Each structure stands twice: as C-alpha cells, then as structure tokens.
C-alpha cells in the first residue's frame, strides 16, 4: 500500500530534482526569447504535474480498495 502511495510523491520529487539539476529546462528560470509553447510545456514541471495527477486521482481510490478487505476482516473479527 505504501508503494502505491509513494509513486506520485516520488514522481513529483523526480521533477523537482530535475528542475534543480537542469534549471535551463524550466522557462520560468530562463524566460529570454521564449515562445508560447515554451511557457506551456516545461518538461520538469510536466513530471511534477503527472505525479500530482496520479497522487490526487488514482492513488487514493486504490489505497481505499486495498484497505477495504482489511476493514472487512476487522469488522468480522469484532462481530
């Protein structure tokens, strides 16, 4: 369960580390003579975005579904 929860944050961390290692890949740090697409598509920020999307949309439901049988087993033992 921990592994599934960690996938998103690890991806976000990967994006942040990449942005620090190669700041020239982030248009916010080097805005000179950059076009619209450079502002819209900044690779390290895309990685952060993907990690966030996974963490917020996919991971919570998966963790719930993994916990459900444990909860049911707990309820049965208590009952």
């Amino acid at each position: 369960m921990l592994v599934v929860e960690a996938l998103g944050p690890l991806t976000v961390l990967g994006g942040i580390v990449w942005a620090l290692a190669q700041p020239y890949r982030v248009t916010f740090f080097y805005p000179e003579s950059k076009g619209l697409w450079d502002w819209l598509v900044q690779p390290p920020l895309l990685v952060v975005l993907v990690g966030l999307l996974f963490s917020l949309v996919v991971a919570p439901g998966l963790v719930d579904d993994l916990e459900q049988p444990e909860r049911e087993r707990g309820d049965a033992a208590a009952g």
Partner: protein
Amino acid sequence: MLPRAEIAHWLFAAGFLFFALVLLAEAIVGPEVFRRRAWRAHLWPSLMLLAGLWLWVIAIFSTFSTLHLLAHSAWAQAATAAGAVQLAVVRGRLVSPYWSLVTAAGLFVSGSAFLIHEQNGWLFARSAFLHHLIGWTMVIAVIFPLGAAFRPRWPVWAYGFAATWIAVAVMLFSDRDLAPIFGHLSEFAGGVPVP
C-alpha cells in the same frame, strides 16, 4: 502556431509517464483490485486509444516527409488497435489472454517505425540517438506482452511493460531537436557550419 517536434515529444513523454504509473500501480496491486472500479479498469486502455488518436493528429501535421507521415500513421494505427482491443478485454467482450498479442504487434510496429524512419546514424545528433534507442527498446519490450499472452499469471510481464513506458518517457523527455549526444554532433546536423 505549431509546436516544435521536441515540444510534441515532451507532451507524449508526460502522457507515457502517467500511463506507466497507472500500469505500475496495476502491477503492484494486481488486476483484481485495480479493476474493482470501472473507471480505473478502463483507464490505461483509454489512454492507449487516446495516444492513438493524438498520433493521428501528429500524422496529419507530419506531411513534411513521406517517411514521417508513414511512421506516425503506423504508430497511430498500432496504438488505436491495441487500445481498442484492451478496452474490449476489460469490458469482458474478449477473454483470451492471446489478445495481448495485438499489444505485442503494436509495440513491434511502433519500434520498427522508429528505427526505419530514422535515416541518420546513432551519433548524428541526440534526436537520432534517441530514435534508435526508443526503437530498439520497443522492439525488445515486445517480450512483455508476448509473455503475458503465453504465461498470463507471471507478474513480471506487467512490471516489465510498465518499466518500458517509464524508459520511453525518460528518453522522450531527453529529446532535443538539435543537441549533441555524448559530446558529439555531426556537422551535417546543423551544429557546425559545413565548410
């Protein structure tokens, strides 16, 4: 205003990275838990189908070269077919594990198209290097959907398939329209003026 090729590659890289995380999550928790919610079961086949549709859009704008047009169309066709078949699998319309062979064929067609449409050698420029590397990665990765067809209970195929897309995403994120590879850039690539 059309985006540069590298921008399109980075967008696909982001899509493939999300696709890989979804596949990895399914490999970790197992298909039984992962497919407990209908929307999640349909997620990665839909993403594959969507990638196919986007590749058709790319194909439309790749008319600058016949080879690129054919390569992008081949990828689009392969991804669309694989996505459609996987959607039918999760909906229960198709039950045989051998349908995974369609994904294997799609991966092989995509990898071959990468290799065939790159006319320059490995060290010509970074984009050429990455085309060769991605092509061979996809061709070799055919082993994962092939394995899933013949030994569907082995989890290694699911992990391998997910790892393949993480690798493809990293490679696509590394792509630049014009950049050296291992310090080398051919003078014909545009880095150094030809005397």
